[in-house]
Protein backbone atom coordinates (compact mmCIF):
# COMPACT_ATOMS: atom_id res chain seq x y z
CA UNK A 1 0.00 0.00 0.00
CA UNK A 2 1.16 3.54 -0.72
CA UNK A 3 1.53 6.21 1.95
CA UNK A 4 3.12 9.60 2.45
CA UNK A 5 5.84 9.52 5.10
CA UNK A 6 6.63 12.55 7.20
CA UNK A 7 9.43 12.87 9.74
CA UNK A 8 10.22 14.87 12.85
CA UNK A 9 11.70 14.83 16.28
CA UNK A 10 10.47 12.89 19.28
CA UNK A 11 11.65 13.27 22.85
CA UNK A 12 12.62 9.63 22.90
CA UNK A 13 14.71 9.98 19.73
CA UNK A 14 16.42 13.01 21.25
CA UNK A 15 17.04 11.17 24.50
CA UNK A 16 19.00 8.44 22.75
CA UNK A 17 20.56 10.54 20.01
CA UNK A 18 24.04 10.15 21.49
CA UNK A 19 23.53 6.40 21.92
CA UNK A 20 22.64 5.40 18.40
CA UNK A 21 24.05 1.93 18.73
CA UNK A 22 21.65 0.94 21.49
CA UNK A 23 18.42 -1.02 21.23
CA UNK A 24 16.22 1.82 22.59
CA UNK A 25 17.46 4.15 19.82
CA UNK A 26 16.90 1.48 17.17
CA UNK A 27 13.40 0.81 18.52
CA UNK A 28 12.45 4.49 18.36
CA UNK A 29 14.11 5.36 15.06
CA UNK A 30 12.79 2.25 13.30
CA UNK A 31 9.22 2.73 14.55
CA UNK A 32 6.67 3.75 11.94
CA UNK A 33 3.52 5.35 13.32
CA UNK A 34 0.28 5.02 11.40
CA UNK A 35 -3.44 5.41 11.72
CA UNK A 36 -5.13 2.27 13.18
CA UNK A 37 -7.48 2.01 10.18
CA UNK A 38 -4.47 1.92 7.86
CA UNK A 39 -3.04 -0.87 10.03
CA UNK A 40 -6.30 -2.75 9.64
CA UNK A 41 -6.08 -2.37 5.86
CA UNK A 42 -2.47 -3.54 5.86
CA UNK A 43 -3.37 -6.50 8.11
CA UNK A 44 -0.70 -5.58 10.68
CA UNK A 45 -0.86 -5.12 14.43
CA UNK A 46 1.12 -3.04 16.91
CA UNK A 47 4.75 -4.19 16.89
CA UNK A 48 4.54 -6.08 13.59
CA UNK A 49 7.41 -5.66 11.13
CA UNK A 50 6.87 -3.98 7.78
CA UNK A 51 9.13 -3.35 4.84
CA UNK A 52 9.00 0.28 3.80
CA UNK A 53 10.28 1.31 0.38
CA UNK A 54 10.89 4.83 -0.89
CA UNK A 55 12.83 6.51 -3.69
CA UNK A 56 16.07 6.31 -1.67
CA UNK A 57 15.88 2.63 -0.70
CA UNK A 58 14.10 0.11 1.48
CA UNK A 59 14.20 -0.66 5.21
CA UNK A 60 12.38 -2.79 7.79
CA UNK A 61 10.49 -1.02 10.59
CA UNK A 62 7.98 -1.86 13.30
CA UNK A 63 4.45 -0.50 13.36
CA UNK A 64 3.05 1.64 16.17
CA UNK A 65 -0.51 2.86 16.06
CA UNK A 66 -1.13 6.59 16.27
CA UNK A 67 -4.76 7.71 16.03
CA UNK A 68 -3.59 11.34 15.79
CA UNK A 69 -2.27 10.70 12.28
CA UNK A 70 -4.69 11.06 9.37
CA UNK A 71 -5.15 8.05 7.13
CA UNK A 72 -2.52 7.77 4.41
CA UNK A 73 0.12 9.64 6.41
CA UNK A 74 2.80 7.77 8.37
CA UNK A 75 5.41 9.24 10.73
CA UNK A 76 8.97 8.13 11.41
CA UNK A 77 11.32 10.13 13.63
CA UNK A 78 14.36 11.51 11.86
CA UNK A 79 17.31 9.14 11.72
CA UNK A 80 18.99 6.53 9.56
CA UNK A 81 15.83 4.46 9.04
CA UNK A 82 13.74 7.33 7.69
CA UNK A 83 16.70 8.56 5.67
CA UNK A 84 17.17 5.17 4.04
CA UNK A 85 13.96 6.03 2.17
CA UNK A 86 14.49 9.69 1.28
CA UNK A 87 15.75 10.65 -2.14
CA UNK A 88 18.99 12.66 -2.15
CA UNK A 89 17.61 15.04 -4.81
CA UNK A 90 17.19 18.57 -3.52
CA UNK A 91 15.68 20.27 -6.61
CA UNK A 92 18.51 22.80 -6.48
CA UNK A 93 17.69 23.90 -2.93
CA UNK A 94 20.25 21.91 -0.93
CA UNK A 95 17.43 20.37 1.11
CA UNK A 96 16.01 16.90 0.41
CA UNK A 97 12.25 16.33 0.75
CA UNK A 98 12.56 14.84 4.24
CA UNK A 99 9.00 15.73 5.26
CA UNK A 100 7.13 14.35 2.29
CA UNK A 101 8.46 10.98 1.18
CA UNK A 102 6.12 8.74 -0.87
CA UNK A 103 6.56 5.18 0.41
CA UNK A 104 5.04 1.75 -0.09
CA UNK A 105 4.55 -0.51 2.92
CA UNK A 106 4.07 -4.26 3.11
CA UNK A 107 4.12 -6.73 6.01
CA UNK A 108 7.30 -8.76 6.40
CA UNK A 109 8.80 -11.44 8.62
CA UNK A 110 12.19 -9.68 8.61
CA UNK A 111 13.45 -7.72 11.63
CA UNK A 112 14.69 -4.09 11.80
CA UNK A 113 18.47 -3.96 11.57
CA UNK A 114 20.62 -2.22 14.19
CA UNK A 115 22.19 1.08 13.10
CA UNK A 116 25.61 -0.53 12.65
CA UNK A 117 24.17 -3.10 10.22
CA UNK A 118 22.36 -0.33 8.30
CA UNK A 119 25.68 1.45 7.92
CA UNK A 120 27.31 -1.79 6.78
CA UNK A 121 24.71 -1.88 3.99
CA UNK A 122 25.98 1.58 3.03
CA UNK A 123 29.51 0.24 2.72
CA UNK A 124 30.67 1.00 6.27
CA UNK A 125 32.45 -1.17 8.82
CA UNK A 126 30.56 -1.57 12.12
CA UNK A 127 32.52 -0.51 15.19
CA UNK A 128 31.59 -2.30 18.38
CA UNK A 129 32.77 -0.81 21.66
Amino acid at each position, binding site marked *: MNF*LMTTGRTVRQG*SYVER*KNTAPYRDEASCIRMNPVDMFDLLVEEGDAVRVTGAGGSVVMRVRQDPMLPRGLVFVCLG*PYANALASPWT*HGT*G*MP*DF*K*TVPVSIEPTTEQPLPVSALMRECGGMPYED
Partner: protein
Amino acid sequence: MRIEDVVCPFCGCLCDDLVVSVEGTKVLSVENGCTLATEKFTGDHRLAHPIRRTGGAWEKTTYDDAIRETAEILLDAERPLLYGWSGTFVEAQTLGVHMAELLGAVIDNTSTVCHGPSILAIQEVGHPGCTLGQVKNRADVIVYWGANPIEAHPRHMSRYTTFTDGFFVKSAFRDRKVIVVDIRETDSSEIADEFVKVTPGGDYAVLTALRMIVRGKGDLVPATVSGVTREQLFRVAEICLSARFGAIFFGLGLTMSRGKSKNIRNAIELTEELNRHTKFTISPMRGHWNVYGSNEVFTWITGYPYAVDFSRGIAFYNPGETTSVDLLRRKECDACLVVASDPGAHFPRACAEHLASIPTVQIDPHMNATTHLSRIQIPVAVTGIDAEGTAYRMDGVPIRTRKLFSTGYPDDVSVLGRIYSLVKEAKG
Protein backbone atom coordinates in the same frame (compact mmCIF):
# COMPACT_ATOMS: atom_id res chain seq x y z
CA MET B 1 29.18 19.83 44.17
CA ARG B 2 26.09 21.78 43.07
CA ILE B 3 26.62 24.09 40.07
CA GLU B 4 24.00 26.72 39.24
CA ASP B 5 23.20 28.59 36.00
CA VAL B 6 24.48 25.75 33.85
CA VAL B 7 23.84 26.08 30.10
CA CYS B 8 22.29 23.11 28.31
CA PRO B 9 24.11 22.17 25.07
CA PHE B 10 21.30 20.29 23.41
CA CYS B 11 18.75 22.33 21.46
CA GLY B 12 18.58 25.91 20.23
CA CYS B 13 16.82 27.06 23.41
CA LEU B 14 20.22 26.93 25.13
CA CYS B 15 18.49 27.02 28.56
CA ASP B 16 20.83 28.70 31.04
CA ASP B 17 19.08 27.97 34.33
CA LEU B 18 20.05 24.37 34.97
CA VAL B 19 21.36 23.21 38.33
CA VAL B 20 23.69 20.27 37.98
CA SER B 21 25.12 18.19 40.82
CA VAL B 22 28.45 16.55 40.08
CA GLU B 23 30.84 14.30 41.91
CA GLY B 24 34.26 14.12 40.27
CA THR B 25 33.52 13.54 36.60
CA LYS B 26 30.06 12.08 37.17
CA VAL B 27 26.81 14.02 36.87
CA LEU B 28 24.50 12.97 39.69
CA SER B 29 21.42 15.03 38.91
CA VAL B 30 20.04 17.77 36.68
CA GLU B 31 17.42 20.23 37.94
CA ASN B 32 15.24 22.46 35.73
CA GLY B 33 16.28 20.62 32.56
CA CYS B 34 13.97 18.71 30.23
CA THR B 35 14.37 15.01 29.48
CA LEU B 36 16.80 15.83 26.68
CA ALA B 37 19.01 17.86 29.01
CA THR B 38 19.01 15.16 31.67
CA GLU B 39 19.98 12.51 29.13
CA LYS B 40 22.68 14.78 27.71
CA PHE B 41 24.31 15.51 31.06
CA THR B 42 24.01 12.03 32.52
CA GLY B 43 24.95 10.17 29.33
CA ASP B 44 28.06 8.04 29.69
CA HIS B 45 28.50 6.60 26.23
CA ARG B 46 31.70 8.32 25.17
CA LEU B 47 34.17 6.84 22.75
CA ALA B 48 37.11 6.04 25.03
CA HIS B 49 40.01 6.68 22.63
CA PRO B 50 40.76 7.52 18.99
CA ILE B 51 40.07 4.68 16.56
CA ARG B 52 41.10 4.00 12.98
CA ARG B 53 40.01 1.49 10.41
CA THR B 54 42.63 -0.56 8.57
CA GLY B 55 41.37 -2.98 5.97
CA GLY B 56 38.46 -4.83 7.53
CA ALA B 57 39.10 -4.09 11.20
CA TRP B 58 39.06 -1.26 13.71
CA GLU B 59 42.03 -0.57 15.97
CA LYS B 60 42.92 1.83 18.76
CA THR B 61 45.22 4.64 17.84
CA THR B 62 46.76 7.67 19.52
CA TYR B 63 45.69 11.30 19.29
CA ASP B 64 49.04 12.13 17.66
CA ASP B 65 48.65 9.53 14.93
CA ALA B 66 44.96 10.24 14.35
CA ILE B 67 45.58 13.97 14.02
CA ARG B 68 48.55 13.48 11.69
CA GLU B 69 46.64 11.03 9.50
CA THR B 70 43.62 13.37 9.37
CA ALA B 71 45.81 16.22 8.15
CA GLU B 72 47.32 13.93 5.50
CA ILE B 73 43.87 12.86 4.28
CA LEU B 74 42.74 16.47 3.97
CA LEU B 75 45.95 17.55 2.24
CA ASP B 76 45.76 14.66 -0.25
CA ALA B 77 42.16 15.44 -1.22
CA GLU B 78 41.24 17.51 -4.25
CA ARG B 79 37.70 18.33 -3.10
CA PRO B 80 37.47 17.93 0.68
CA LEU B 81 34.22 18.63 2.54
CA LEU B 82 34.30 19.91 6.12
CA TYR B 83 30.81 19.24 7.47
CA GLY B 84 28.92 19.59 10.74
CA TRP B 85 29.96 22.28 13.21
CA SER B 86 26.61 22.87 14.90
CA GLY B 87 27.41 20.79 17.97
CA THR B 88 30.59 22.62 18.84
CA PHE B 89 31.44 26.12 20.02
CA VAL B 90 32.21 29.17 17.90
CA GLU B 91 35.94 29.15 18.60
CA ALA B 92 36.16 25.69 16.99
CA GLN B 93 33.90 26.76 14.12
CA THR B 94 36.26 29.66 13.45
CA LEU B 95 39.20 27.30 13.10
CA GLY B 96 37.16 25.16 10.73
CA VAL B 97 36.47 28.04 8.36
CA HIS B 98 40.12 29.12 8.31
CA MET B 99 41.18 25.54 7.62
CA ALA B 100 38.66 25.28 4.77
CA GLU B 101 40.17 28.38 3.19
CA LEU B 102 43.68 26.95 3.43
CA LEU B 103 42.57 23.65 1.92
CA GLY B 104 40.36 25.12 -0.79
CA ALA B 105 37.61 22.96 0.71
CA VAL B 106 33.85 23.20 0.94
CA ILE B 107 32.65 23.93 4.47
CA ASP B 108 29.01 23.38 5.37
CA ASN B 109 27.03 23.19 8.59
CA THR B 110 23.88 21.35 9.57
CA SER B 111 21.67 24.27 8.46
CA THR B 112 22.01 22.59 5.10
CA VAL B 113 19.46 19.98 6.28
CA CYS B 114 17.45 22.13 8.72
CA HIS B 115 16.95 25.88 8.31
CA GLY B 116 19.00 26.41 5.15
CA PRO B 117 15.81 27.32 3.25
CA SER B 118 14.95 29.79 6.02
CA ILE B 119 18.28 31.51 5.46
CA LEU B 120 17.63 31.69 1.72
CA ALA B 121 14.28 33.36 2.41
CA ILE B 122 15.80 35.76 4.93
CA GLN B 123 18.41 36.73 2.33
CA GLU B 124 15.55 37.57 -0.03
CA VAL B 125 13.20 39.49 2.26
CA GLY B 126 14.89 40.03 5.63
CA HIS B 127 14.17 38.76 9.11
CA PRO B 128 11.70 40.66 11.30
CA GLY B 129 12.75 38.77 14.43
CA CYS B 130 13.35 39.53 18.07
CA THR B 131 14.87 37.95 21.14
CA LEU B 132 13.03 35.34 23.14
CA GLY B 133 12.97 37.77 26.05
CA GLN B 134 10.78 40.12 24.00
CA VAL B 135 8.42 37.25 23.22
CA LYS B 136 8.22 36.21 26.85
CA ASN B 137 7.49 39.69 28.12
CA ARG B 138 5.25 41.03 25.35
CA ALA B 139 3.67 38.41 23.08
CA ASP B 140 -0.03 37.74 23.52
CA VAL B 141 -0.35 35.64 20.34
CA ILE B 142 2.03 32.79 19.57
CA VAL B 143 2.00 30.83 16.32
CA TYR B 144 3.90 27.55 15.96
CA TRP B 145 3.94 26.69 12.25
CA GLY B 146 5.34 23.31 11.18
CA ALA B 147 6.91 22.93 14.59
CA ASN B 148 6.29 20.62 17.53
CA PRO B 149 8.05 22.28 20.46
CA ILE B 150 6.87 19.77 23.05
CA GLU B 151 8.97 17.08 21.34
CA ALA B 152 11.78 19.11 19.79
CA HIS B 153 12.28 22.08 22.15
CA PRO B 154 10.59 20.83 25.32
CA ARG B 155 11.10 23.99 27.40
CA HIS B 156 10.30 26.57 24.73
CA MET B 157 6.72 26.90 25.91
CA SER B 158 7.56 26.97 29.60
CA ARG B 159 10.42 29.47 29.31
CA TYR B 160 9.18 31.84 26.64
CA THR B 161 5.56 31.40 25.57
CA THR B 162 2.51 29.48 26.77
CA PHE B 163 3.39 28.61 30.32
CA THR B 164 5.44 31.56 31.53
CA ASP B 165 4.25 34.98 32.62
CA GLY B 166 5.97 38.08 31.26
CA PHE B 167 6.30 41.76 32.21
CA PHE B 168 3.34 42.76 30.05
CA VAL B 169 1.64 39.36 30.09
CA LYS B 170 0.66 38.81 33.68
CA SER B 171 -1.20 35.53 33.25
CA ALA B 172 0.31 33.78 30.27
CA PHE B 173 -1.87 30.71 30.19
CA ARG B 174 -5.02 32.87 30.08
CA ASP B 175 -3.71 35.88 28.16
CA ARG B 176 -1.60 34.29 25.43
CA LYS B 177 -3.43 32.73 22.50
CA VAL B 178 -1.59 29.85 20.85
CA ILE B 179 -2.11 28.84 17.22
CA VAL B 180 -0.52 25.64 15.94
CA VAL B 181 -0.34 24.90 12.21
CA ASP B 182 0.70 21.40 11.21
CA ILE B 183 -0.13 18.53 8.88
CA ARG B 184 -0.86 16.24 11.84
CA GLU B 185 -2.10 16.46 15.39
CA THR B 186 0.72 16.59 17.91
CA ASP B 187 1.11 17.11 21.65
CA SER B 188 1.71 20.78 20.83
CA SER B 189 -1.49 21.08 18.78
CA GLU B 190 -3.48 19.61 21.67
CA ILE B 191 -2.83 22.64 23.85
CA ALA B 192 -3.45 25.18 21.08
CA ASP B 193 -6.39 27.58 21.15
CA GLU B 194 -6.59 27.12 17.40
CA PHE B 195 -5.20 24.11 15.55
CA VAL B 196 -4.95 24.57 11.81
CA LYS B 197 -4.55 21.26 10.03
CA VAL B 198 -3.04 21.69 6.58
CA THR B 199 -2.83 19.01 3.92
CA PRO B 200 0.83 18.02 3.31
CA GLY B 201 2.54 20.50 1.00
CA GLY B 202 -0.25 23.05 1.40
CA ASP B 203 1.46 25.58 3.69
CA TYR B 204 2.28 28.06 0.93
CA ALA B 205 -1.35 28.33 -0.13
CA VAL B 206 -2.54 28.77 3.47
CA LEU B 207 0.03 31.50 4.09
CA THR B 208 -1.07 33.22 0.90
CA ALA B 209 -4.75 33.04 1.94
CA LEU B 210 -3.92 34.60 5.31
CA ARG B 211 -1.99 37.38 3.56
CA MET B 212 -5.02 38.02 1.36
CA ILE B 213 -7.30 38.33 4.36
CA VAL B 214 -4.92 40.64 6.20
CA ARG B 215 -4.62 42.73 3.01
CA GLY B 216 -8.42 43.08 2.79
CA LYS B 217 -8.83 40.70 -0.13
CA GLY B 218 -10.52 37.98 1.90
CA ASP B 219 -13.55 37.90 -0.39
CA LEU B 220 -11.35 36.13 -2.94
CA VAL B 221 -10.45 33.28 -0.57
CA PRO B 222 -12.20 30.03 -1.59
CA ALA B 223 -14.23 27.81 0.76
CA THR B 224 -11.22 25.67 1.66
CA VAL B 225 -7.51 26.20 1.16
CA SER B 226 -5.28 23.11 1.50
CA GLY B 227 -7.77 21.50 3.83
CA VAL B 228 -8.37 24.63 5.94
CA THR B 229 -11.82 26.17 5.90
CA ARG B 230 -12.37 29.80 4.97
CA GLU B 231 -14.02 30.35 8.36
CA GLN B 232 -10.95 29.13 10.23
CA LEU B 233 -8.64 31.22 8.06
CA PHE B 234 -10.65 34.34 8.93
CA ARG B 235 -10.66 33.36 12.61
CA VAL B 236 -6.86 32.91 12.63
CA ALA B 237 -6.36 36.21 10.80
CA GLU B 238 -8.59 37.95 13.34
CA ILE B 239 -6.63 36.52 16.27
CA CYS B 240 -3.41 37.76 14.68
CA LEU B 241 -4.80 41.18 13.82
CA SER B 242 -6.12 41.70 17.34
CA ALA B 243 -2.77 40.83 18.91
CA ARG B 244 -0.84 43.53 20.72
CA PHE B 245 2.36 41.61 19.95
CA GLY B 246 2.45 38.40 17.97
CA ALA B 247 5.31 35.96 17.48
CA ILE B 248 5.49 33.28 14.80
CA PHE B 249 7.88 30.38 15.34
CA PHE B 250 8.35 28.02 12.43
CA GLY B 251 10.01 24.64 12.16
CA LEU B 252 11.16 22.14 9.60
CA GLY B 253 7.56 21.48 8.61
CA LEU B 254 7.98 24.55 6.42
CA THR B 255 11.63 24.18 5.37
CA MET B 256 11.52 20.51 4.35
CA SER B 257 8.17 20.39 2.61
CA ARG B 258 7.06 21.53 -0.84
CA GLY B 259 7.95 25.16 -1.41
CA LYS B 260 10.86 25.12 1.08
CA SER B 261 12.43 28.59 1.09
CA LYS B 262 9.39 30.05 -0.64
CA ASN B 263 7.21 28.88 2.28
CA ILE B 264 9.44 30.85 4.62
CA ARG B 265 9.44 33.86 2.34
CA ASN B 266 5.65 33.78 2.35
CA ALA B 267 5.57 33.49 6.15
CA ILE B 268 7.93 36.46 6.48
CA GLU B 269 5.77 38.46 4.09
CA LEU B 270 2.68 37.55 6.15
CA THR B 271 4.56 38.92 9.16
CA GLU B 272 5.27 42.08 7.19
CA GLU B 273 1.56 42.42 6.31
CA LEU B 274 0.58 41.97 9.97
CA ASN B 275 3.04 44.69 10.96
CA ARG B 276 0.92 47.18 9.02
CA HIS B 277 -1.71 46.61 11.72
CA THR B 278 0.12 45.53 14.87
CA LYS B 279 3.52 44.28 16.02
CA PHE B 280 4.50 40.83 14.75
CA THR B 281 7.79 38.93 14.62
CA ILE B 282 8.91 35.63 13.11
CA SER B 283 11.75 33.32 14.10
CA PRO B 284 13.01 29.86 13.18
CA MET B 285 13.07 27.12 15.81
CA ARG B 286 16.74 26.24 15.52
CA GLY B 287 17.60 22.63 16.34
CA HIS B 288 21.24 22.10 17.31
CA TRP B 289 22.33 24.15 20.31
CA ASN B 290 24.90 26.11 18.29
CA VAL B 291 23.71 25.88 14.72
CA TYR B 292 22.98 29.61 14.86
CA GLY B 293 26.61 30.13 15.92
CA SER B 294 27.85 28.25 12.88
CA ASN B 295 25.83 30.60 10.63
CA GLU B 296 27.25 33.59 12.50
CA VAL B 297 30.85 32.42 12.31
CA PHE B 298 30.68 31.42 8.65
CA THR B 299 29.16 34.81 7.84
CA TRP B 300 31.71 36.83 9.84
CA ILE B 301 34.56 35.23 7.97
CA THR B 302 33.22 34.45 4.51
CA GLY B 303 30.09 36.55 4.06
CA TYR B 304 27.96 33.41 3.68
CA PRO B 305 26.15 31.40 6.36
CA TYR B 306 26.62 27.82 5.08
CA ALA B 307 27.67 25.79 2.01
CA VAL B 308 30.81 27.86 1.37
CA ASP B 309 33.13 26.61 -1.36
CA PHE B 310 36.77 27.80 -1.29
CA SER B 311 37.92 25.77 -4.30
CA ARG B 312 38.14 28.94 -6.44
CA GLY B 313 40.43 30.60 -3.89
CA ILE B 314 37.57 32.87 -2.83
CA ALA B 315 34.40 32.17 -0.88
CA PHE B 316 31.69 30.96 -3.27
CA TYR B 317 28.13 30.16 -2.16
CA ASN B 318 25.47 28.45 -4.21
CA PRO B 319 23.03 26.27 -2.21
CA GLY B 320 21.85 23.43 -4.39
CA GLU B 321 25.38 23.11 -5.77
CA THR B 322 27.74 23.67 -2.83
CA THR B 323 25.47 22.08 -0.23
CA SER B 324 26.64 18.82 1.35
CA VAL B 325 23.78 16.59 0.22
CA ASP B 326 24.27 17.70 -3.39
CA LEU B 327 28.06 17.30 -3.25
CA LEU B 328 27.75 13.81 -1.81
CA ARG B 329 24.95 12.79 -4.18
CA ARG B 330 27.16 13.81 -7.09
CA LYS B 331 30.03 11.83 -5.48
CA GLU B 332 32.12 14.96 -5.91
CA CYS B 333 34.08 15.17 -2.67
CA ASP B 334 37.00 12.82 -2.14
CA ALA B 335 37.47 13.26 1.63
CA CYS B 336 35.27 14.46 4.45
CA LEU B 337 35.92 15.80 7.92
CA VAL B 338 32.80 15.56 10.08
CA VAL B 339 32.81 17.68 13.22
CA ALA B 340 30.09 17.46 15.88
CA SER B 341 27.25 16.06 13.80
CA ASP B 342 26.05 12.76 12.34
CA PRO B 343 25.47 12.81 8.57
CA GLY B 344 25.41 9.00 8.53
CA ALA B 345 22.11 9.18 10.41
CA HIS B 346 20.73 12.41 9.04
CA PHE B 347 21.57 12.45 5.33
CA PRO B 348 19.82 10.32 2.68
CA ARG B 349 21.33 6.87 2.26
CA ALA B 350 23.01 7.72 -1.04
CA CYS B 351 25.07 10.35 0.80
CA ALA B 352 26.02 7.89 3.55
CA GLU B 353 27.17 5.47 0.87
CA HIS B 354 29.52 8.06 -0.59
CA LEU B 355 30.85 8.94 2.87
CA ALA B 356 31.71 5.25 3.32
CA SER B 357 33.53 5.14 0.00
CA ILE B 358 35.91 8.06 0.71
CA PRO B 359 38.25 8.73 3.65
CA THR B 360 35.90 10.19 6.23
CA VAL B 361 37.22 11.40 9.58
CA GLN B 362 34.91 12.20 12.45
CA ILE B 363 35.64 14.40 15.47
CA ASP B 364 32.90 13.65 17.99
CA PRO B 365 32.63 12.56 21.62
CA HIS B 366 30.22 9.71 20.88
CA MET B 367 29.89 6.71 18.64
CA ASN B 368 27.14 7.35 16.15
CA ALA B 369 26.04 6.21 12.70
CA THR B 370 28.90 8.11 11.02
CA THR B 371 31.41 6.20 13.14
CA HIS B 372 30.73 3.08 11.07
CA LEU B 373 31.30 5.00 7.83
CA SER B 374 34.55 6.62 8.96
CA ARG B 375 38.22 5.72 8.66
CA ILE B 376 39.17 7.61 11.83
CA GLN B 377 37.24 8.95 14.82
CA ILE B 378 38.80 11.30 17.34
CA PRO B 379 36.82 11.67 20.60
CA VAL B 380 36.73 15.09 22.20
CA ALA B 381 35.29 16.72 25.30
CA VAL B 382 31.59 17.59 25.32
CA THR B 383 31.15 21.34 25.17
CA GLY B 384 29.05 22.49 28.10
CA ILE B 385 30.11 19.51 30.24
CA ASP B 386 33.90 19.09 30.13
CA ALA B 387 34.72 22.00 27.82
CA GLU B 388 33.53 25.56 27.63
CA GLY B 389 32.91 27.86 24.70
CA THR B 390 30.51 30.39 23.19
CA ALA B 391 27.25 29.38 21.55
CA TYR B 392 24.37 31.30 19.96
CA ARG B 393 20.82 30.73 21.11
CA MET B 394 18.10 30.35 18.46
CA ASP B 395 17.36 34.09 18.68
CA GLY B 396 20.98 35.08 18.07
CA VAL B 397 21.95 35.78 21.68
CA PRO B 398 25.49 34.58 22.45
CA ILE B 399 25.81 32.57 25.66
CA ARG B 400 28.97 31.15 27.15
CA THR B 401 28.58 27.47 28.00
CA ARG B 402 30.27 26.27 31.17
CA LYS B 403 32.78 23.57 31.95
CA LEU B 404 31.59 21.49 34.90
CA PHE B 405 34.67 19.34 35.38
CA SER B 406 37.82 18.20 33.60
CA THR B 407 38.28 14.87 31.91
CA GLY B 408 41.20 13.62 29.91
CA TYR B 409 39.54 14.53 26.62
CA PRO B 410 40.91 17.43 24.56
CA ASP B 411 38.31 19.96 23.38
CA ASP B 412 37.46 20.61 19.71
CA VAL B 413 39.75 23.64 19.48
CA SER B 414 42.69 21.65 20.75
CA VAL B 415 42.25 18.86 18.16
CA LEU B 416 41.28 21.16 15.27
CA GLY B 417 44.11 23.54 16.16
CA ARG B 418 46.65 20.76 15.78
CA ILE B 419 45.19 19.63 12.44
CA TYR B 420 45.15 23.27 11.29
CA SER B 421 48.81 23.70 12.23
CA LEU B 422 49.82 20.66 10.20
CA VAL B 423 47.79 21.86 7.21
CA LYS B 424 49.27 25.34 7.46
CA GLU B 425 52.78 23.96 7.70
CA ALA B 426 52.25 21.87 4.57
CA LYS B 427 50.60 24.71 2.66
CA GLY B 428 53.38 27.10 3.61
